[in-house]
């Protein structure tokens, strides 16, 4: 039995015990539901173990030679390829994806740009503190979940940050106050105790709460008697006291607060509030943690920054990085691409119909290890090993901390890793030389 990090979600728990003989996994101890599912994917019935190409409108098994030849043909016929996904692969594979994008003068972006990347860039530009899991365990006395439901998205997060005992405090859960702001009483509410604060906000009224908190930041005297956004006055007073009195607080932001609005930018308003509280805080500070589900959603920005000096999307022309105002959404929406290479994600399921229908009109190459809605419309499907079980590499945890994922088993049919496959594609495009 050995300890391995888990690639089931972006928490990358490094305390999972796996019993394996190198051929099969016999037992997995300590994994949550998502982690267990990740290990079960090795033998999942919808696992893709052979390359496939579309013939007569049907996906059929093909040899690697035939599938790679078809892939190269699609790419060579393209003048504006789009590369997307890269949140469920290692940093090494992300780097290989960027190299491929450079080689074929493509546009590359990750899932982060439609998820937590939006907050990250704004937080960085405002100089907001991001925090780490270890810091939360050791120091935090106030945890606010805002539009976030980690109990169902990152199942062990609350175990780790709420119930663990910190190094620099005598107690753990007893001194940690949990505040949840959400329009729905989610599964995360079930861990709340008597001194915690459950705030059921009216849907889409977060802006009213933020504006009130900004106005009343250090004085609770003039909170409207009827409350704000469905939250009553006494609860608002308690929230203000917690925000201004915490020695170390963290706001954990979920998808609920990163939605765009026509007349205001909720993220900027929230970051402004954070700055205001931290400026007025006498003894402590409030920092941020961004929830993102895919196991290496945070990695893409790090790799882009270290490889090309910019974070997020990259556009190449004449094998050089050029500036682009486009995003993955605008690229697809304007149909400013003529083929797509999708890596480790399922955009046909997770993008709105108006985008998925445009994506499906152009040749699509999918690199993934299991069936999905995207595999149903792909022209070529190239299977890869399951990262963190059948291949190794670096990933960045939810709090931007790097974690080395390890290989436990050999993949079936000698399937390559994402990194190996992407490098192989570059070689093929170069006629054999990388």
């Amino acid at each position, binding site marked *: 039995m050995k300890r391995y990090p888990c690639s089931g979600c972006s928490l990358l728990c490094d305390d999972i015990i796996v019993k394996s003989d190198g051929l099969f996994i016999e037992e997995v101890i300590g994994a949550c539901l998502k982690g267990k599912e990740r290990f079960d994917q090795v033998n999942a019935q919808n696992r893709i173990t052979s390359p496939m190409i579309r013939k007569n409108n049907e996906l059929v098994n093909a040899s690697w030679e035939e599938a790679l030849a078809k892939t190269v043909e699609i790419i060579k016929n393209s003048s504006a390829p789009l590369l997307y996904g890269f949140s469920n692969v290692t940093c090494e594979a992300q780097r290989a994806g960027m190299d491929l994008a450079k080689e074929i003068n493509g546009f590359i972006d990750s899932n982060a740009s439609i998820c937590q990347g939006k907050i990250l860039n704004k937080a960085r530009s405002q100089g907001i503190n991001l925090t780490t899991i270890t810091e939360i365990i050791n120091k935090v006395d106030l945890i606010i979940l805002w539009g976030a439901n980690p109990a169902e998205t990152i199942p062990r997060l609350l175990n780790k940050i709420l119930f663990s005992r910190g190094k620099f405090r005598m107690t753990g859960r007893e001194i940690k106050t949990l505040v949840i702001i959400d329009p729905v009483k*989610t599964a995360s509410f079930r861990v709340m105790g008597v001194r915690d604060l459950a705030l059921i906000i009216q849907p889409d009224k977060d802006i009213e709460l933020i504006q009130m908190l900004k106005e009343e930041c250090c004085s609770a005297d003039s909170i409207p008697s009827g409350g704000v956004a469905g939250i009553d006055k006494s609860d608002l007073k308690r929230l203000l006291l917690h925000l201004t009195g915490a020695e170390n607080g963290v706001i954990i932001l979920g998808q609920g607060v990163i939605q765009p609005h026509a007349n205001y930018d909720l993220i900027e308003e929230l970051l402004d509030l954070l700055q205001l509280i931290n400026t007025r805080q006498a003894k402590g500070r409030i920092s941020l943690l961004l929830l993102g589900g895919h196991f290496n959603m945070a990695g893409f920005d790090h790799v882009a920054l270290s490889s090309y000096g910019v974070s997020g999307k990259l556009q190449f022309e004449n094998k050089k990085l050029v500036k682009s105002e486009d995003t993955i*959404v605008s690229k697809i929406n304007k149909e400013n691409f003529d083929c797509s290479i999708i890596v480790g994600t399922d955009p046909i399921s997770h993008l709105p119909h108006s985008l998925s229908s445009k994506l499906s009109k152009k040749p699509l190459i999918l690199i993934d290890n299991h069936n999905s809605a995207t595999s149903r419309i792909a022209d070529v499907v190239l299977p890869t090993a399951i990262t963190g079980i059948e291949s190794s590499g670096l990933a960045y945890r939810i709090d931007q901390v790097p974690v080395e994922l390890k290989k436990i088993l050999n993949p079936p049919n000698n399937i390559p890793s994402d990194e190996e496959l992407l490098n192989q594609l570059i070689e093929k495009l170069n006629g054999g030389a990388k």
Partner: protein
Amino acid sequence: MDFILNTIRKIDNDQVKEHSFGNEQSLEENLAISFINPKDFDKLNLVSSLHLKISNNQRNIIVKIEKDENVPEGTIMIPVSIWSNQLTEILNDELVYKNIVVSVEATREPILKFKEIIQKIRGIE
């Protein structure tokens, strides 16, 4: 009747799990589903054998319906999936997954099949 649509992640209605381990039937059972407040369930004169037709300006989906007292009145929740994303939108080049105004009605029509959605996406009506 108009509702606010919010797409949500639920560990028991997870699209990655269904695509990895399930089949088209389990996909439809676990993802073509919506959750509304019991009071709204009554207002819509729903019974368990009926389905819900949820429409925005351009498209509609037909899904199963379940009562959930944790869902606020006037709101409808659907797990993130290919079904919910037939109704999600784009605003200023950003994706809108929550707070979408939709119109909702009870129907006896069958649930929208996974294959039908794929055909619609591919432009095969």
